[in-house]
């Protein structure tokens, strides 16, 4: 089981409390689709993803970005049991969506960069370290039902 110090719990709650899911979610998914274009393969029904502007203005990308980031709320609210919390989502991503687990790390990295952009120097190395720990646990949990 993952151990969290009081300081880490406070940091996670503080970071999450400042994140506007309606903005950060869409920006993050758009960023993944732009920086790692092969991920567009998973979104064949989303319409125009032909360039950065199209992706950033795409309403389906925006809606799905919110869905994805809202799911992170489960981790923040269940820090002591992230693996079980994500078991169903893991199965979904493996069996139905067939997403290569490598992509979870790409999304995590883009989310970190979008948050760094939004927070500026308040995203200190210490905050980054705690946030990275949370995302690593989430990525591991999402991969856990794959095999």
């Amino acid at each position, binding site marked *: 089981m993952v151990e969290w110090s009081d300081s880490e719990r406070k940091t996670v709650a503080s970071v999450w409390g400042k994140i506007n899911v309606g903005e950060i979610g869409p920006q993050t998914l*758009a960023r993944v689709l732009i920086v790692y274009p092969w991920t567009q393969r998973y979104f064949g029904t989303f319409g125009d993803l032909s360039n950065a502007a199209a992706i950033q203005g795409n309403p389906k990308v925006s809606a799905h970005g919110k869905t994805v980031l809202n799911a992170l709320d489960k981790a923040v609210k269940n820090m002591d049991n992230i693996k079980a919390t994500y078991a169903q989502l893991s199965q979904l991503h493996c069996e139905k969506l067939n997403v290569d687990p490598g992509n979870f790390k790409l999304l995590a990295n883009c989310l970190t960069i*979008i948050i*760094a*952009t*939004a927070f500026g*120097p308040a995203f200190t190395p210490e905050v*980054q370290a705690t946030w*990275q720990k949370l995302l690593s646990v989430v990525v591991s949990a999402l991969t856990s039902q794959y095999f």
Partner: protein
Amino acid sequence: MSLTAKDKAFVKAFWGKISDQADAIGQEAVGRMLIVYPQTKIYFPDWTDFSLDSPQVKKHGKTVMSAITDAVGKMDDLIGEMSSLSDLHATKVRLDPVNFKILSHNILVTLAVHFPTDFTAEVHVAVDKFLAAVSAAIADKYR
């Protein structure tokens, strides 16, 4: 994933905006890497201070970032131009290639923190590709 003319143009334009802060960016990127990915400390066994404002972190950040800034002007032949750095990393440093991605990520985070308006999605993909190309050039002599 080779650098297109557009990538090179984005990288050059962005580097023009950041180059006078390159040393500080390097220091912060290396500092973040050591704090967020503590396994990277293994490559610095004689260091005594791994904090962000340590003189050792400052010096190494400058060394790394100077080489990267140098590479901006060498994008047409990174493998050729970085050959001696590749020898160094292959034979003396023996840096596990996974660390290129780790440092690159921390450079991107540092850029995002300090240049929120200039570090757009299009700059992000161009710089990410550039850092990957630099990493490949440094790993070129690995085996």
